[in-house]
Each structure stands twice: as structure tokens, then as C-alpha cells.
């Protein structure tokens, strides 16, 4: 028989041992020793075991005794989350590191634009959700003590009052947490003492549970086979877990595993190395499996051996006790004690960080109007706030325990707590995976989920008539049938837990999503969103201060008060050196201010740090570059923008084509625009001479016969010129409208050229040497010889008129290739300027190189072009070389009929 006093002594020794271990770890960490252990994946994995609280240690057996295998869902969820570390935890840890996140409230507020309101909401929810859980731990310690007390009681007939034991446990835990949890202010320096103590406790509880389990299986049940047989024969021998509960509880446990403040603390905040996650990904599921391995055997054996009415929640203790295994019972008690204390310590630590950073500090800063740059040691205030928060939270837990009278099955309280913190999940997941999530969405989602949780889970848990009247249970709020806490919207028959989880989480997520879609994030939010979502792509922070106005001294004063004088000086000196400057004060560059803000965030949380720096720097500013950076960072945006780039390239190309076309059109349109003006000019010019000389002839009496003849001949010449112009215009019009009639005949190139050269040179005033090679011109083909000659005449005449050489020479050469005959007219003149080339073939283009421009109307080449098109060839300018080179290209094929429009070829042959 173990006496209560013995138990208390063992307990105190154990606690003293924990203090020593924690103290030693702190010292070692301070000296930089013992990193191999303190920062080992083993310790990290073991510290995760605070997931397994007294609820696990005692409650799981009770749970199994009541509901069979359903208890195991509480461990399946977290195991899946660990195995899925690649998807979620890796991101969380990376974000926690990059943003120096101090708690889950800090993470959510930081993600949604460093909103303090959000942080307060999350903190409040966490406190409300976790306080029952802390009460649960105190209750379990008291209950376990009562087992020993009961076994001792018959001696004097009275069970000693154990209420005070809960108080003592609470005080002890508060002391430990204050001592080791607020030792160093910067949470990111991590609480080595706490972590190592938690790790030790993890080993103790595992060993204790395994020991009881082994004793039960091999000591009481007689081996594995017998145990399994006994299980099948028991009341819980049949699988009768409700499917919806199975799935819902697995998901709920998974959600809580991520969202519980204490889990977030050990998993993200205390994480030293991302690689530890990888090891924990299999090691922690292993731990969980071992913890739950013997639960069913213990439950079944307990149901078998212990008298009916024994509390199944305490089988772990009462079984060894009833078998007289005092040592084992003691170990088991220590295991349960460890589970309870480690949970309370870490949960309190996590909550107190949240309370002090998000509630106390902002109030303190607001109350002190002077703000962060005034004198006074903020550092002390922060630590004091944190210590007070610890006391407050443990006090709350204790009060809850006293108020609730320690009633109710352990598992029920645990599940309620899980349901409360699981409400963070949509905001958390949305925040790190979805850039579109907004603060308004997070706030409304959290509020919805939390309100539903209160209504469907927390308040009903007090029982009918306590928080909610029996009337509300039966008829709903205000008599509205669809507002019954366990049958929302009239859906009845669901298990109350499943009902609460499904409604609160799904509506939470729905509201979060919808509000996010319909609200617009502010710049800081958007920036943080990008950094959180893309944390794996780049871990560099990008938000910057326009810090030129921030005085380094002021920042230094503030930093000293929060980080401590020595740490602040080291930090500032480090930055000064990094910037390459002399002295100890760095320039307040945006990089530096941002690094400082993150350093401060480690001590007081992102929102508070942001507010403090903002007070000195003069307002948070997000520059256009920042926003551009956000845009740049998004992989989606990149993909999208590359598509845009491709599109814009296409557009640029199209635009260039359009521009070229437009240029030509503009020029053409100018030409067209000037068409009437040109025709007017071409008609009026000869008419001026005709009119003038005819008036002279008419009005002048004493003209010599010679003059008369001369003036008459001028009139005649000009009249001919007019006729020619009209002919040309008509010709062109006919050619352009496709009404031309071709007189096709077989001829040789030489003959056509002969005719053209002779015609062109008749009456020519300037000499022009024409070089030809009759041999290559001996090509026969089918064409309209007159029209072709017209083209050649035009080209020869042009050379005659416009070739500026002192000894004008025109070389006519012929080449045959690819089914074409090329006749090239190359003169030795000055050539045509590049900008004029495009216009040469347009109507009325006269380049006016010589004064002898009065002859043609500038229609010749236009006509040539039209003729060549009708003949199935074309005419163009050959670039390069000296002089002007026109190339007339004819189809060479014997059988090839010259191209003419259908219906035009009335007189073929």
C-alpha cells in the first residue's frame, strides 16, 4: 500500500528532478554546450508528446472501455499530419522561422496584415478553448491522487479533501512555467529548460504506460493470444464505431494537433531545425502508436478484473494497485502526473505569450501615449505581463476546475477543447495556401465557427438547464426549431460531436471563403499573404520600411528596452558592420529596420513589434515596389505574366505590321487625297499654255507669221500632252478595274525589246546608250506583245529622262530561272533613294530629280505595274548596286497561259 505521504514525497522529488534537469539545460544552452541533445530530433519528437496529456494517459483507457476502438482516432489524426509533414508542417515551420512567429495567434494576425484585432480574437478563443483542458489536467491529478487516498481511506473512514491538492499542483506548475518560461524574452531563443523537461516527462509517461500495458498483457492476461481472446469476449469485443464519428474525430484530432496553441509552440516555435520534422514524421507516429498500443488490453482487463462501477478513466492506476503492484502504480502515477504537468506548462506558456503579446502589450502601449520611444524599460513590462498571464491562465484553469466540480468524463472535455481550437484551421490553412484570404474573411470565419462551437459543443456540455435551458435544447433559441444546439437547421439524429464539428468547421470555412472572396486585402495583408503562401519558394522577407526618417538612436533606445541592452548593442553593431560603416549605429536602411522588427517580433509578437517600429519610423509603408514584388513573387502571376508576355509579343508584332501597313496606307491615302489635286495640276498646266497662247493669237494683231506658227505649235503640243494624260488615265483605270483585253500572241523577247527601244528612242533629245545581248533574248513565249512593249518603252523612256549620268547607259539583261524570265533594266544613274522606293509605282509619283519633269504625269510606272500583273508577272525595283534597276518578271512556261481574270480573255490567241 502506498501512503499518500509517500506519494507526495515521490512527486516532489520528481518535480525537483525536473527543475534540476530544466535548470541544467538552460545553463548548458547558455554556454553553448549540449547542442547535440538540446537541438536533437529526439528531443523535438519527445517534446511533441505533450499532445498526449493526462487525457491520453488516463482517459484513453476509459474511452476504450466505453466506446471501443474509437479512442484511437485521437492518435490517427496527428499521425497523418506528421506523415504529411511535407504538405503542411514544413510550410508552418518555414513561416514561423521567416516571420519569427511566437504563437498561432501571432501567425494568423501576421498573415492577415499584422492585425491586432485578429490576434486578440484568436487569443481569446484559445484561452476559452484551452482553459477547460487545463482544468482537465488538474482534475486528473486530483483524481489519481484520490485513488491512492481511497485505498488508504478505510483506515480512518474519511477521504481527505483533495481539492487543495489541485491548488498545490497549480501553484507548482505556475512556478515552473514562470521560472523557465519567461527566462528569456525572445521566444525564438527557445525555452530549452522547458523543452528538455517536457522530453523527460514524455519518456516517463511512455515508459509508465508501456510498463502497465506489459504487466497487464503478460502478467494478468497471460500473453498476446489470451489477451486478444479476452478482448473479443469482452463487452467491446465487436467493432461498433459509428462511421461518422470515426471520420469526424480523426479529422478533428488532426485539426487540433495543428491548431492547439501548445502544439504550435513545440512544433513550430521551438523548432530548431526543419530536418527534425523529417525524423519526427515517423518517430512521433511511432510514439503515438506505442502510447495507444496497450489501451484496449488495459481497458478490457480492467473491465474484467475490477469491480463494476470502478472509474475506467483510472484503470491505469487501479489495476496495478488492485494487484498489489505498488511500484508500478507509483510509476503509472508519475506517468499521469507527467502528462498533466507537461501539458499545463507548455499550454500556459503558449497562451501567456499570446495574452501578453496581443492583449497586455497593445493596451500598455496605448495607455502610455508617449509610445515606444519614451524612456522606461519595456522589457520588464513584457516579462511582467507574461508572468501575470501565466498566473492568470493557470488561475483560470483552476477556477474552471473548481467551478465544474471535476465532473464529466475526461474524453468529453478533451473533445470540446479540440473542437474550439480546430476553429483556427480554416484561417490557418487559408492563410498559408491561399493568397486571396483576407482579414475580414478570417475574422468572420473565426467568429462564425467559434459561435457555433460555443452553441453546439461548449454550452451543451454543461448539461441541460445550466448554460442553456432545457427549452432551448428541445425547441431551439426563441422557439425556432432550426436553432436547436444539437440539431441545427433541423438535421437530427447526428451524433452531437459530429454535428458540432461538421457544422462549426464547415460554416467557418464557408464564411471565411466567401467573405475573403468579396473583400479586398489591404497592401500589408497582400504582402504578408504572398510571403506566407510562397514561403517555400524564397525565404527572404520583402516588406520594407521607408526608414530614412527613422532615427537610429531612437530605434536603439527602443530595442534596448525590449531586447535588453547587450543584445540590442550586439544586434546594432552587427548591422553596422554589415553595412560597412564605422561606429556602432547602422544606417536605418529598410533592410535593417525590417530585421529589427523581426527581432522585436520574437519578443513581443509581430503586431506589437510592427506597431512599435511604426511609431518611430512614422507609419507602415508599403511601396509600389513592394506591391510589384508581391506580383513578381507569385508563381501564378509569373505564369500568367509569361502568357501575357507572349500575348504582348504577338501584339507588338501585330502592331508593327499594322504600323507598316498604316504607314503605307497613310502615304497611299495622301496620294489618293492628292489625286484630284494632281489631276487638276496635270490638266491645268497644259491648259494654261493653251489658253494663254490662244488669247495671244486672238488678241494680238501684229504677230509675225513665224510667231503665229510657233505659238500654234505650242498649243498643239500641249493639246497632245493633254490627250496623252487622258489616255494614260483611262488606260490605268481600265487596267485597275480589270477590264483590260489582252491580245495574246506568240512572240520572242528580242522582237518586243527591239520594238520598244526603237519607239522610245524616236524623237529622244538626250543620247542613251543601250546595251543588249541578243543571244539571251531569243526566248519565245505567249504574251500580249503590245502591252509588254508598253512596259519596256516606259522603262527605256524613264532611263532616258531621269538617268543623271553624263553618259547615260542602259543595260538590258535577261535571265531565266524557276519558271520565270527576268528582264532587268539597269541604268548608270544615281538610283532611287530608299524612302522613295515604295512610292515609285504609285500614281503621280514624280521624284523630280531633274527639271525636265513636265513631260509625264507620273502614271507610267503605275501603268507598268498593272500591265505586268495582267500578264501574270510583276515589276519591281532591284535593290543594291549603283543606278536604278527595274526587274520585269514574266512567266516563262510555254504552256502557261498568262494570267488574266476569268471572263477577260475574250480574244485569246
Amino acid at each position: 500500500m502506498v501512503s499518500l505521504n509517500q506519494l507526495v514525497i515521490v512527486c516532489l522529488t520528481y518535480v525537483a528532478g525536473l527543475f534540476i534537469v530544466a535548470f541544467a539545460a538552460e545553463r548548458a544552452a547558455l554556454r553553448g554546450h549540449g547542442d547535440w541533445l538540446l537541438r536533437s530530433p529526439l528531443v523535438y519528437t519527445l517534446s511533441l508528446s505533450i499532445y498526449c496529456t493526462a487525457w491520453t494517459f488516463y482517459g484513453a483507457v476509459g474511452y476504450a472501455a466505453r466506446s471501443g476502438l474509437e479512442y484511437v482516432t485521437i492518435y490517427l489524426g496527428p499521425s497523418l499530419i506528421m506523415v504529411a509533414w511535407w504538405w503542411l508542417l514544413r510550410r508552418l515551420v518555414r513561416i514561423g522561422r521567416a516571420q519569427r512567429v511566437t504563437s498561432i495567434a501571432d501567425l494568423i494576425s501576421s498573415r492577415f496584415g499584422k492585425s491586432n484585432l485578429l490576434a486578440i480574437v484568436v487569443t481569446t478563443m484559445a484561452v476559452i478553448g484551452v482553459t477547460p483542458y487545463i482544468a482537465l489536467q488538474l482534475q486528473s491529478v486530483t483524481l489519481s491522487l484520490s485513488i491512492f487516498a481511497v485505498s488508504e481511506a478505510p483506515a480512518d473512514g474519511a477521504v481527505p479533501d483533495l481539492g487543495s491538492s489541485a491548488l498545490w499542483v497549480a501553484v507548482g506548475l505556475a512556478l515552473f512555467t514562470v521560472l523557465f518560461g519567461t527566462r528569456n524574452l525572445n521566444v525564438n531563443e527557445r525555452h530549452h529548460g522547458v523543452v528538455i523537461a517536457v522530453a523527460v516527462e514524455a519518456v516517463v509517461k511512455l515508459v509508465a504506460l508501456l510498463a502497465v500495458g506489459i504487466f497487464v498483457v503478460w502478467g494478468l492476461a497471460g500473453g498476446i493470444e489470451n489477451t486478444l481472446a479476452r478482448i473479443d469476449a469482452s463487452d467491446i469485443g465487436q467493432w461498433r464505431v459509428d462511421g461518422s464519428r470515426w471520420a469526424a474525430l480523426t479529422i478533428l484530432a488532426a485539426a487540433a494537433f495543428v491548431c492547439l496553441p501548445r502544439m504550435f509552440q513545440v512544433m513550430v516555435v521551438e523548432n530548431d531545425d526543419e530536418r527534425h520534422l523529417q525524423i519526427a514524421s515517423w518517430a512521433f507516429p511511432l510514439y503515438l502508436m506505442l502510447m495507444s498500443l496497450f489501451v484496449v488490453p488495459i481497458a478490457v482487463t480492467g473491465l474484467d478484473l475490477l469491480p463494476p462501477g470502478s472509474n475506467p478513466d483510472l484503470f491505469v492506476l487501479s489495476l496495478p494497485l488492485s494487484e498489489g503492484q505498488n511500484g508500478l502504480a507509483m510509476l503509472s502515477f508519475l506517468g499521469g502526473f507527467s502528462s498533466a504537468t507537461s501539458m499545463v506548462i507548455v499550454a500556459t506558456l503558449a497562451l501567456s505569450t499570446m495574452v501578453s503579446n496581443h492583449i497586455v502589450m497593445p493596451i500598455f502601449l496605448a495607455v502610455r501615449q508617449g509610445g515606444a520611444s519614451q524612456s522606461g524599460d519595456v522589457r520588464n513590462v513584457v516579462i511582467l505581463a507574461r508572468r501575470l498571464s501565466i498566473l492568470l491562465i493557470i488561475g483560470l484553469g483552476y477556477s474552471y476546475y473548481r467551478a465544474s466540480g471535476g465532473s464529466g468524463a475526461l474524453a468529453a472535455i478533451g473533445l470540446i477543447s479540440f473542437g474550439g481550437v480546430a476553429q483556427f484551421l480554416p484561417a490557418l490553412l487559408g492563410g498559408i495556401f491561399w493568397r486571396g484570404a483576407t482579414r475580414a474573411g478570417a475574422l468572420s470565419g473565426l467568429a462564425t465557427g467559434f459561435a457555433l462551437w460555443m452553441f453546439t459543443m461548449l454550452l451543451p456540455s454543461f448539461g441541460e438547464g445550466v448554460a442553456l435551458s432545457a427549452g432551448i435544447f428541445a425547441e431551439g433559441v426563441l422557439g425556432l426549431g432550426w436553432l436547436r444546439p444539437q440539431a441545427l437547421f433541423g438535421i437530427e439524429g447526428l451524433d452531437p460531436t459530429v454535428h458540432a464539428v461538421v457544422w462549426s468547421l464547415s460554416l467557418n470555412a464557408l464564411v471565411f471563403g466567401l467573405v475573403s472572396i468579396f473583400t479586398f486585402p489591404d497592401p500589408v495583408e497582400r504582402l504578408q499573404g504572398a510571403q506566407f503562401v510562397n514561403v517555400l519558394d524564397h525565404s527572404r522577407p520583402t516588406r520594407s520600411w521607408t526608414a530614412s526618417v527613422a532615427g537610429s538612436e531612437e530605434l536603439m533606445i527602443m530595442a534596448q528596452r525590449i531586447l535588453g541592452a547587450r543584445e540590442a548593442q550586439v544586434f546594432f553593431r552587427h548591422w553596422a558592420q554589415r553595412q560597412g560603416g564605422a561606429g556602432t549605429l547602422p544606417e536605418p536602411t529598410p533592410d535593417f529596420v525590417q530585421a529589427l522588427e523581426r527581432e522585436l517580433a520574437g519578443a513581443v509578437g509581430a503586431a506589437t513589434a510592427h506597431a512599435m517600429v511604426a511609431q518611430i519610423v512614422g507609419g507602415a509603408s508599403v511601396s509600389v515596389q513592394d506591391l510589384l514584388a508581391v506580383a513578381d513573387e507569385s508563381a501564378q502571376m509569373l505564369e500568367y505574366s509569361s502568357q501575357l508576355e507572349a500575348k504582348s509579343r504577338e501584339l507588338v508584332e501585330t502592331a508593327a505590321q499594322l504600323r507598316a501597313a498604316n504607314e503605307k496606307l497613310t502615304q497611299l491615302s495622301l496620294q489618293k487625297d492628292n489625286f484630284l489635286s494632281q489631276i487638276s495640276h496635270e490638266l491645268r498646266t497644259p491648259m494654261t499654255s493653251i489658253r494663254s497662247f490662244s488669247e495671244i493669237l486672238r488678241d494680238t494683231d501684229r504677230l509675225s507669221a513665224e510667231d503665229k506658227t510657233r505659238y500654234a505649235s505650242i498649243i498643239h503640243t500641249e493639246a497632245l500632252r493633254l490627250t496623252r494624260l487622258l489616255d494614260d488615265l483611262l488606260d490605268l483605270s481600265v487596267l485597275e478595274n480589270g477590264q483590260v483585253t489582252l491580245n495574246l500572241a506568240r512572240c520572242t523577247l528580242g522582237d518586243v525589246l527591239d520594238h520598244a527601244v526603237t519607239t522610245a528612242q524616236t524623237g529622244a533629245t538626250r543620247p542613251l546608250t543601250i546595251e543588249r545581248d541578243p543571244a539571251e533574248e531569243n526566248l519565245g513565249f505567249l504574251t500580249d506583245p503590245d502591252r509588254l512593249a508598253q512596259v519596256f518603252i516606259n522603262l527605256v523612256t524613264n532611263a532616258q529622262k531621269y538617268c543623271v549620268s553624263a553618259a547615260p547607259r542602259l543595260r538590258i539583261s535577261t535571265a531565266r530561272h524557276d519558271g520565270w524570265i527576268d528582264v532587268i533594266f539597269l541604268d548608270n544613274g544615281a538610283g532611287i533613294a530608299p524612302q522613295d522606293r515604295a512610292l515609285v509605282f504609285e500614281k503621280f509619283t514624280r521624284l523630280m530629280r531633274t527639271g525636265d519633269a513636265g513631260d509625264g504625269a507620273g502614271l507610267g510606272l503605275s501603268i507598268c505595274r498593272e500591265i505586268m500583273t495582267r500578264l501574270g508577272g510583276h515589276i519591281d525595283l532591284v535593290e543594291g548596286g549603283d543606278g536604278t534597276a527595274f526587274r520585269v518578271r514574266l512567266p516563262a512556261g510555254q504552256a502557261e497561259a498568262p494570267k488574266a481574270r476569268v471572263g477577260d480573255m475574250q480574244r485569246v490567241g
Partner: protein
Amino acid sequence: MDALRVLPFLGLALWMVPLLWPLGPGPEGLPPGTGADTAPGMTTADALRYIFGVWLLLILSAAVLWRRTGDLPGPGEPVDPAAPAEGGG
């Protein structure tokens, strides 16, 4: 790397298999589910074997994957999601 990503979903699927099991008779002998009095149902021992078997499988797979993929790049080095680290073996 892909196995690493798929593993949790495999685990989830296997652990949701019990949803398909017929419900056994209740402790008072009343069948909470339908047709449970004729079908023998799944015994808790079998269920235990199955669930813990899957558990063990997941743990071993995760451990093997950890061995195979090797360590992640350190926190200072950016992880390029397009080029997952290939371990030896």
C-alpha cells in the same frame, strides 16, 4: 519525393476503411446498425490488428522515405520545389 507526398493520403484511405465494416452488436446485445445480428461483424481484435498494422506500415514507410530522400536542404538554403532533392539509393 512523390511517395512522400502521397503517403499521408494512402494512410488516410487505409484508416477510413473501417467505415465499411459492419457494426457489431452493442454491449446490451441490441444491434445499433442494420443487419448486425446476422453478420458476425468485425471483432475488436481484428480491428486492432488492422489499424495498428496500417500504423506500423506508415511509420516504416515514413522512416524508409526519410532514409532514402536524405536530409532536406538547411533552412538557409531555399528549396526549389521544381527540383526535389534526390537521395542516394
